[in-house]
């Protein structure tokens, strides 16, 4: 199973990605997915700007996807992360995992999201509804804690 990893500025179609994982197959019993979207923070934001480290972003996401494929018996895994200017309501990230049974698909999806938050070289900056450039989003300690729980054998 080769994870599909894409780092792109364009939007993506979660339904098409999930269908691609399972279509024409009769061995897949579970497809879990996660879509991350841009919020406007109660009208405060006009957009999020996502800066990324070209080259490392692809390599790091592929590395984490490969780790998930080693940890769980996955039959398919797709990770897409966008960069550039993203408006409220637009999609930022997709993780979709397929397996025979539900647990590996759900666990791998959660694992990928925790690791993308803390290890994938992306940085969010706020663009304010007032037209001004806002602050860089600060990393959350809760995200480090969420990622660190996977360090123990699962």
């Amino acid at each position: 199973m080769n994870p599909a990893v894409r780092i792109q500025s364009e939007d993506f179609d979660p339904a098409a990605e999930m269908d691609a994982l399972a279509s024409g197959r009769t061995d897949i019993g579970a497809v879990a997915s996660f879509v991350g979207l841009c919020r406007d923070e109660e009208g405060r934001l006009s957009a999020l700007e996502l800066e990324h480290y070209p080259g490392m972003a692809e390599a790091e996401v592929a590395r984490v996807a490969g780790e998930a494929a080693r940890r769980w018996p996955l039959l398919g895994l797709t990770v897409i992360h966008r960069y550039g200017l993203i408006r409220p309501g637009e999609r930022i990230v997709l993780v979709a995992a397929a397996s025979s049974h539900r647990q590996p698909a759900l666990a791998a999806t959660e694992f990928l999201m925790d690791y993308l938050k803390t290890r994938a070289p992306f940085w969010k900056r706020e663009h304010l509804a007032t037209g001004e450039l806002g602050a860089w989003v600060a990393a959350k300690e809760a995200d480090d804690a969420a990622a660190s729980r996977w360090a123990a054998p699962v």
Partner: protein
Amino acid sequence: MKLVYFAWVRERVGRAEEHVEPPAGIGTVAELVAWLKSRGEGYAHAFENERVIRAAIDHVHARPDASLQGAREVAFFPPMTGG
């Protein structure tokens, strides 16, 4: 050696990338940071809280004590906030 900077580290340093020739004796990421801080106010500001700065060597996360031996591209950036 190529250095690249991202997010507010890039803004404080004042450039996205540069080529440097660190003096002899600069063997680790931490030693490189210490040398960069001596190069001007922007660098000093960017690296003032070294604990929060993350580094990567040739696209792989690297700790402060990681060796620069053979490194082509070293990156410095704030904690990641993707996902």
